[in-house]
């Protein structure tokens, strides 16, 4: 259904975009000696047409090191048992060196520069590709620093653009100062009022600092984070998994070393998710800087994400079953650009609050969507006959029209509330399955550009039509109200 690649606006562009109607001086033709010397400080106030810059010269080395991990994973346990440790190491190193050589070639041919309100990334040796990323469409900027990058003082800059099936233009790697400066600049250019936001780069940026810039909103206590991840189903499953493997291993020689090792690796992928969450959300800090939200988190890999507030598509609150005793919940932010089908949840760094009490969540929500309170949403349950479809969860289901947002509630065990501002609704759908038709029920979906949108399930048909009409009308009004800005 979703074909992210097909709707990528940058893909369909001609390789060399025509000059902007604004009429800036055209880019001079590139030639090899034209790049600034690597590691040279970037000019603080660049001219309208600035020179193409290369990524940091250490990037290929980092890519090579990263590919070593991938190579080892791809070769897998069975190769190890077949060829022995020595050959395995040789194979891995040869492949990694090959990858590094490719990375050097790609680094040599990669350059970026900001032209007018576009970021242009040039890459490729045989297939030259120039991506022009219009900054008006920038949804979020993220600075990611994996462990190796932290050791070498580098950072990766990731931009999220609508329509990109995957993260567009990951600039890997830049020096930390360059990354921070470029982020600041891109955000200033991407802002709704460029002239107002352009003041921001004047303030000296010291990075990495202990806290994200701006007014701090919340810091998640690491003990809470640890405890919250212990209270997940995976943690309770670990003993069973260990017992299972142990009994299989001890019950006979039917299982070889390879089988056990592979099973353990596979299980680790699932069961160690809480640990990954702890590592990812370590030292989680949230701050508000004028009209952007900034988060900073991570132990081994630090991420600093910046989301302009007007780019928030939806906010979801989740109350996992095991957290109820503590009264904890999790808040997440949906931003357009992260494709819904992205398998690696880690690459969707839209956490707003990994764990926290209700008052904290309310305070954060008030910053993101002023006037919206989780405990004060006008939610109504579907009619009692919806029990035929949701025998247990009918009283939990809910949907309601708040003054500014459409809110839906679902989930018997893991309760969830999704809040979508009317202005962010892309389309409204009414779906009625065969059983629903018999019962006179229908489901209303409000689709958003990021995340799964909100679905009010099993409403009475009349109510569903009224809801769809009201959502369409309110979305229209909200957009109209936003337009004069």
């Amino acid at each position: 259904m979703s074909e992210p690649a097909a709707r990528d606006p940058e893909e369909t562009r001609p390789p060399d975009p025509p000059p902007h109607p604004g009429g800036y001086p055209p880019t001079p033709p590139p030639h090899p000696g034209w790049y600034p010397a690597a590691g040279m400080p970037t000019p603080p106030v660049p001219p309208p047409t600035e020179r193409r810059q290369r990524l940091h010269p250490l990037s290929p080395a980092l890519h090579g090191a990263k590919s070593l991990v991938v190579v080892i994973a791809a070769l897998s346990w069975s190769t190890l048992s077949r060829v022995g440790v020595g050959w395995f190491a040789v194979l891995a190193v040869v492949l990694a060196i090959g990858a590094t050589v490719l990375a050097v070639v790609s680094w040599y041919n990669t350059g970026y520069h900001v032209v007018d309100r576009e970021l242009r990334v040039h890459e490729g040796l045989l297939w030259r590709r120039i991506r022009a990323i219009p900054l008006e469409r920038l949804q979020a900027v993220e600075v990611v620093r994996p462990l190796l990058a932290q050791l070498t003082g580098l950072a990766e800059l990731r931009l999220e653009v609508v329509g990109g099936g995957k993260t567009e233009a990951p600039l890997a790697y830049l020096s930390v100062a360059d990354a921070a400066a470029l982020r600041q600049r891109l955000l200033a250019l991407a802002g709704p009022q460029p002239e107002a936001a352009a003041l921001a780069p004047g303030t000296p940026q010291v990075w990495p600092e202990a806290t994200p810039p701006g007014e701090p909103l919340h810091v998640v206590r690491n003990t809470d984070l640890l405890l919250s991840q212990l209270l997940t189903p995976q943690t309770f499953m670990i003993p069973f998994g260990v017992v299972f493997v142990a009994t299989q291993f001890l019950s006979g020689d039917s299982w070889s070393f390879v089988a056990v090792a592979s099973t353990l690796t596979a299980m680790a992928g699932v069961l160690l998710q809480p640990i990954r969450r702890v590592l990812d959300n370590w030292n989680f800090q949230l701050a508000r800087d004028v009209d952007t939200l900034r988060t900073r988190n991570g132990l081994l890999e630090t991420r600093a994400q910046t989301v302009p507030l007007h780019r928030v598509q939806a906010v979801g609150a989740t109350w996992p079953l095991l957290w109820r005793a503590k009264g904890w919940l999790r808040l997440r932010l949906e931003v357009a650009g992260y494709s819904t089908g992205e398998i690696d949840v880690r690459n969707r760094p839209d956490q707003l609050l990994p764990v926290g009490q209700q008052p904290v969540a309310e305070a954060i929500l008030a910053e993101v969507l002023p006037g919206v309170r989780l405990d004060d949403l006008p939610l109504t349950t579907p009619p009692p006959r919806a029990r035929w479809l949701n025998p247990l969860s009918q009283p939990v289901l809910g949907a309601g029209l708040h003054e500014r947002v459409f809110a839906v509630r679902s989930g018997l065990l893991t309760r969830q509330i999704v809040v979508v501002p009317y202005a962010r609704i892309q389309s409204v759908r009414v779906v009625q399955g065969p059983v629903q038709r018999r019962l006179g029920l229908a489901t209303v979906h409000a689709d958003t550009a990021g995340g799964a949108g909100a679905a009010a399930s099993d409403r009475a048909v009349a109510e569903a039509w009224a809801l769809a009409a009201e959502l369409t009308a309110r979305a229209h009004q909200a957009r109209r109200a936003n337009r004069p800005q």
Partner: protein
Amino acid sequence: MTGDDQAGLPPAAPPPTGPPPGPLEPWPETVRWQSVSTDLIWVELLRLAALIVIVLAGLAVGWAISGQAVFGVALTGVLLLTALRTVTIARAVRAWGYAEREDDLLVRHGLLVRRLSIVPYSRMQFVDVSAGPLERAFNLATVQLHTAAAATDARVPGLRPAEASRLRDRLTALGRDRAEGL
């Protein structure tokens, strides 16, 4: 064709608050549904036939080689389902409908699971007009409206090329007037 007098209809921006509960026609007084060409039935039938031939051939070969009765059962099942689908295709095609309101496009389809999409013109990112070989043989085309949300489901198949290009032009013109995007 009728697009212009559609636009002249009473504005649908404040829709009636208490619409009558109809399974497929939410606001009959403000919405004039247009159906798609019945030639789409033939396109769908031929598509189904092509698929079924491949599946049946696969199953028959499997049956001939292995001699397992499972393949025979599967073969019968597929044939039964095909018969059922053949009967319902005509109704399914008649269930497709679209309507152009002042601010949004409505598309409804589906028999078993009925779907209605309301897509504001202002949210349009781009419009696709496509025609596969089968559709071209019957002089038909498909128009699809894309928004920034992947879940948006606004595809109108079985349009005459003239109507398809009219719809495309109208959608792009309206989209340009009201562009809002995200």
